[in-house]
């Protein structure tokens, strides 16, 4: 099984951070995984995205045309990557920073106000982890233990942030009821 992901938003929203957390979760779950950040002359506030590709077998293709799952944390990312969702795929959109609008009927949409929810938790910067929680809920066979380990790996120099991010992640994970999504 191969699954492709695109995580997108603007510089400063922690796009690449949750990309590496996701890639680490897959690695710790013994999957083959590649993580490709877009790189360029980007700056805070500019567009940022990364690709994560996961496979049960040796991963063979690197840059893929379309993704099974897309996270878009702002309007620009939503507009830019809506066309990159595979037929039958899912896009997860931050409705605090993007209009709720369904232009395709061959994909699933999840809208949630990640920024507002993060503010409720007291830190706007953890909106990304809420979105990651929503995404991981939709995937099979990933354990909370590996999610925690992934956060510990990424945030090993900022220990105080681990707890906060895991809390945000769990909020996201429990945000969408399965029947609501189906």
């Amino acid at each position, binding site marked *: 099984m191969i699954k492709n992901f695109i995580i997108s938003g603007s510089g400063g929203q922690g796009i690449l951070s949750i990309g*590496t957390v996701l*890639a*680490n979760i897959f*690695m710790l779950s013994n999957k*083959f*995984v*590649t*993580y*490709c*950040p877009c*790189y*360029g*002359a980007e700056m805070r506030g500019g567009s940022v995205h990364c690709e994560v590709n996961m496979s049960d077998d040796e*991963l*063979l*293709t*690197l*840059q*893929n*045309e379309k993704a099974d799952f897309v996270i878009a944390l702002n309007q620009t990312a939503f507009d830019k990557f809506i066309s990159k969702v595979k037929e039958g795929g899912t896009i997860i959109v931050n409705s605090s920073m993007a209009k709720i609008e369904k232009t395709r009927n061959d994909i699933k949409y999840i809208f949630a106000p990640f920024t507002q929810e993060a503010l409720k938790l007291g830190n706007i910067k953890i909106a990304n982890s809420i979105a990651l929680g929503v995404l991981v809920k939709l995937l099979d066979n990933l354990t909370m233990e590996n999610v925690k380990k992934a956060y510990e*790996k990424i945030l090993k120099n900022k220990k105080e942030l681990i707890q906060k991010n895991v809390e945000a992640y769990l909020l996201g994970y429990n945000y969408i009821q399965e029947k609501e999504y189906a």
Partner: protein
Amino acid sequence: MSEKNLLKGNIAIAKAALNCGCSCYFGYPITPQTDIGEYLSLEMQKRNLAYVCAESEIGAINMALGAASSGEKVMTSSSSCAVALMQETLSYASSDELPVVLVNVMRAGPGQGYIFPSQGDYNQATIGGGNGDYKIIVLSPSSVQECIDLTYKSFYLAQKYRNPTILLVDGLLGQMAEPAIINENPYPDVDNSSWRLDGAKNRASRNIHSLEPNQTKLNQHVVKLYQKYQEIEKNEQVWEEYLCDDAEIILTAFGTMARSVKAVCNHFRQLGIKMGVFRPISLYPFPYNRLRELSIKAKCFIDIEMNMGQMLKDVRLGVLSNAHISFIGKPVGDWLKKEEIINAINNIIKEQYASI
């Protein structure tokens, strides 16, 4: 040490360099390889090793040449248009027989180009732009794990043959992360006490230079270098084969391009077409011998590169003259997609059959 970690290609190279005893790094920042220098600037200071952010790439490679002559394990890293600046010194280092390791994380050219990924420096690395009869060992990784393994190998071959070595890395691979293990350096240390310049205490003085005003001596020197290159060509051809044994059509690709090409091969195998993939890992010495053997059975070769056909000429030199050779390529930017390659191959196969 043996734990799997999600590593960027650039960081993997830097870690492997330290792990096999790189004692001096000289570099000048340029995307997409700046992580190498950034990582080493911290780590080498901690270990009390020599790190210099040079004033230019010309400065960096010449510092590397100087340090190598004193027997240090040296590395410099850069990218395409800046590696162009280093060509003169690569020729000097070849003549001086100095084990300089150069990592080129490729960006798009020609000229200034831009930071988009590309495989446009195959010619620059394997043929080179320096003067005179010289050759540089060139290795090309296709995964982060291979970035580590081939960094070790680059240092080893550079020392073993006293020859500059280039690790030619796709920009995509330098920036990309995947799980990899920083394993032990499997290669032995090479004794350089017979030539290094470490002060002439209790021995006759030595010098290392490429100037040779005596015609006979210069002739001898170049012939000696050539004998060394023949030795390298005999011993160091490395490649990967994927389903080549019964293949009638063989796809050739180097670096990360080979990964998508393998997926393409799987697609055609499922349709019952006998296809294989041949990936040179050493670009110099190019594995001509094996390619020639394969062309006894395979009569159709399709070369796929992220450039306009640079390795293509080596494939042409390698395969027997009655084989049919085609090319699929794109110079700059997003890697050729699996579907694009499949379509292009279908067209090639159609044309082939139409002509029979």
